[in-house]
């Protein structure tokens, strides 16, 4: 009678409970990523000559392709700017939020609004604000006599900073809330003790807050790196990768290569490179993250 239960003894047969998850993850992640590696060795363009094996041909082609290097450069600069500025700004905000001010709840609630707004809609919002003819930014500049006919932000070199700004709007608030959660875990006595020892605000930040916040900072860095490496939606609605290829991030290039130019082989090769970059970074971060904090 107990047979059914025995076979489900979680100590021995834990995998039964995980089976549905494992199947889905294999279908959605593991098989596709392996298949992508395979496709990346094929010449496979819809409407082109037939599918054939070309080994590393797609990769060699990419390495001589200016557009590929351009998109890699754009992605890295974008990620570095976004991660760096997010950490800096959200740390300042978290420290400000940590001061027990009246109405702090309202500030915290406000912080969640940009994060809840999807990057696609964030792009719509910011392209409206920076619209050449009707945007409020141009109106303000115009009122101060700084422009006569309106600056076409999204069709100029300024498109990149606007993309960064819109991305920061999405990610800084939530990051500051994560860091605030981290600050709250630091025992208050440490600060009091350091005050007794005559430490100034900067010293107590540098000696106490920063090291004890390490894991939370790393978590923010991890999240924001992942988010910025996969940036696509905000590019789609804000700049469509332009002007020229100024904001062509790597996900945008994958989309264009695979679903507009219908070159599955080359698209897969870029996909594999993006996956490798992501995995290497994740690995590094997690090695750092799961090292115990030492006092």
């Amino acid at each position: 009678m107990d047979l059914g239960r025995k076979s489900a003894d979680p100590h021995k047969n834990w995998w039964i409970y995980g089976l549905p998850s494992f199947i889905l993850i294999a279908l959605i992640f593991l098989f596709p990523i392996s298949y992508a590696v395979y496709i990346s060795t094929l010449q496979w363009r819809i409407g082109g000559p037939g599918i054939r094996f070309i080994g590393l041909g797609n990769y060699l082609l990419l390495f001589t392709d200016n557009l590929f290097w351009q998109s890699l450069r754009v992605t890295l600069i974008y990620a570095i700017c976004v991660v760096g500025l997010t950490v800096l700004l959200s740390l300042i905000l978290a420290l400000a939020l940590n001061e027990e001010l009246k109405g702090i709840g309202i500030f915290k609630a406000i912080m969640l609004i940009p994060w809840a707004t999807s990057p696609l809609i964030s792009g719509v919002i910011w392209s409206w604000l920076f619209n050449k003819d009707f945007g409020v930014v141009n109106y303000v500049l115009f009122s101060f006599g700084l422009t006569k006919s309106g600056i076409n932000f999204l069709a100029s070199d300024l498109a990149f900073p606007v993309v960064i700004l819109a991305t920061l709007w999405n990610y800084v608030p939530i990051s500051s809330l994560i860091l605030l959660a981290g600050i709250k875990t630091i025992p208050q006595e440490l600060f009091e003790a350091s005050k007794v020892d005559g430490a100034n605000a900067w010293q107590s930040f540098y000696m106490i807050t920063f090291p004890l916040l390490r894991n939370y900072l790393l978590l923010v860095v991890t999240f924001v790196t992942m988010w910025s490496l996969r940036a696509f939606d905000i590019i789609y609605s804000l700049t469509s990768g332009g002007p020229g290829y100024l904001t062509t991030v790597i996900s945008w290039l994958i989309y264009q290569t695979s679903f507009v130019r219908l070159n599955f082989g080359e698209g897969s090769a870029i996909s594999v490179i993006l996956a490798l970059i992501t995995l290497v970074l994740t690995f590094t971060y997690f090695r750092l993250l799961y090292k115990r904090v030492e006092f």
Partner: protein
Amino acid sequence: MKAEKYKKVLAFAILILASIIFVFPFAWILIGSFQTDEQLLSSPPSILPNIDFLINYKAVLLGEFYGPYKVMVPTAITWIPRSIINSIIVAVISSTMTIIVSSPLAFILASFKFRGRDAITFSMILVRTLPIAALIIPLYLVMKNLNLLNTYWVLILTYTGTLLPYGIWMLTASFQTIPKDITDSSTVDGCSTIQTLYKIVFPISAPGIVVTFIFCFLLCWNEFFVALTMTNSPETYTLPVVISMFANLPQMTPYSLMLASAVLGAVPPVIIVLIFQKYIVSGLIAGAVKG
């Protein structure tokens, strides 16, 4: 003491400034969505709503177009109501499936020590960080071969799969807070592990399950890339896909209708997040940071 006071004033100033920057863009499209194109495109910009301030929402949701839109309106706009329904259906089913599929594994991970436990947890995190763009071509081909392209199922399957690591992670953290005595005693009472899960663990960790559901719902509602590549008809388009179609038109962007649609896309997540704000941050960092 004086330094303390300056610190507070500075903090307050920073927060006020930041709040303005965070709220203004959102408030600005909200205000714009209550205006007709004529008001919206006037200079100087006005913040007064139209007399019929829901005029754009009536147009977008009920098809009651006004002014020039009576004559000509981008077809995509007429797809908005259907796409909202599609978004809700896909998000609700995917989130529910995520919880059903991930909870047994999460329960095992939370309650038992076994070989390979850490490996599973770690690979879940690793998998979670893979950008969907890196998987999209094979996924597309798989779904094409399964004849699922352009159906709800392609979105539901993909979303459930991509949400699983989140679900497992968040539910494990939630189940870990249940005292071991409770689950142990139910096993003694003759409940199988699965019965324990559904009869004991689920009710106790209802808040954690709700938060996980909310999280999954938000991510589905906002998802764009997969929906863009895997669907190609108004019957399956989700709201983000439809918005993307007329947000970037080279000529004649229907500005006021665009703003109303953007608000429709943004307001549900914002409301949900504000209701559940207490749990959002703890949900995000659950299990990721220990102490």
